[in-house]
């Protein structure tokens, strides 16, 4: 194997070792919300990718909802006082 990185986009997965894929997939699995600490039973890579996609989608959705809430709040609050409060709480952290 000359290079680890694949140049072509399709059908070059064989160049990347399966070990690498499994390692990355397990690392990804650890970050998913209900990541079980099972090192023995290997969850299929396909499943991990699927859960990753749905997790990212749900995070996007959360951010969208929060953006909407924030936009509502921004419109209705007195910004100066709110900002002072926010800055204070940020510094106190």
């Amino acid at each position, binding site marked *: 194997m*000359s*290079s*680890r*990185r*694949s*140049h072509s*986009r*399709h*059908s*070059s*997965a*064989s160049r*990347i070792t*399966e070990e*690498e*894929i499994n390692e*990355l*997939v397990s*690392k*990804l699995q650890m*970050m998913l919300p209900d990541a079980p600490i099972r090192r023995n039973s290997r969850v299929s*890579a*396909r499943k991990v*990718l*699927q859960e*990753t*996609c749905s*997790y*990212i*989608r749900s*995070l*996007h959705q*959360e*951010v*969208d909802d*929060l*953006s*909407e*809430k*924030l*936009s*509502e*709040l*921004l*419109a*209705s*609050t*007195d*910004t*100066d*006082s*709110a*900002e*002072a*409060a*926010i*800055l204070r*709480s*940020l510094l106190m*952290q």
Partner: protein
Amino acid sequence: MEAESSTSNQQRKRKRSASESSEKPAQSTWRSDKEHRLYSSKLLEALRRVRSGSGSSSPRTDPPRSRAVREAADRALAISARGRTRWSRAILSSRSIKLKSNRIRVPCPARPKRTELERIQSAADQEKKKSVVLQSKAKVLGRLVPGCKKLSFPTLLEEASDYIKALEMQVKAMSALTEILSMFGGGTEGAPGMVQDAGAGTSTGTDSMPPPA
């Protein structure tokens, strides 16, 4: 030519890994308090700009307003990444396009139909079949993470894991901000007294203090 490009790739990778080694390890990235605070202050700045930008529009939730908030939050997030990742650079370079493509939900690409020959071949190499399935999933993932549609598999997974951590921090920061704002503002039914005092405090200092007896 291939050797050249591979060495330049290697050089780039080495440079990137060198810069990354001086930074905190991947585990604490996006999770440290310092990053959280940094992002929160950037977010605040961006939100302030959003508010001052659309002064004349109605205070109700018009879609552009929440869209502007989302954009500002994403942009602040991308800036916090300090150019380490592809998705952050993609957000900064082409924001409006990315949002449009986020709206459109593209269904998973169908698996390629198998001919007779492929059926025989697939029995032989299971690995190839598995990689085809993985690639279709990877394609979907590549559409979700900005700027990662045509990456190699390991790079895509790396970008995705960093993106997830960044998104989690974004959610945390935005919900904290929402909480604070809803405590201090949240319409006029909440605690008008508090808002009044704070407002008076910024304009003139004498009103907040009780007059000396």
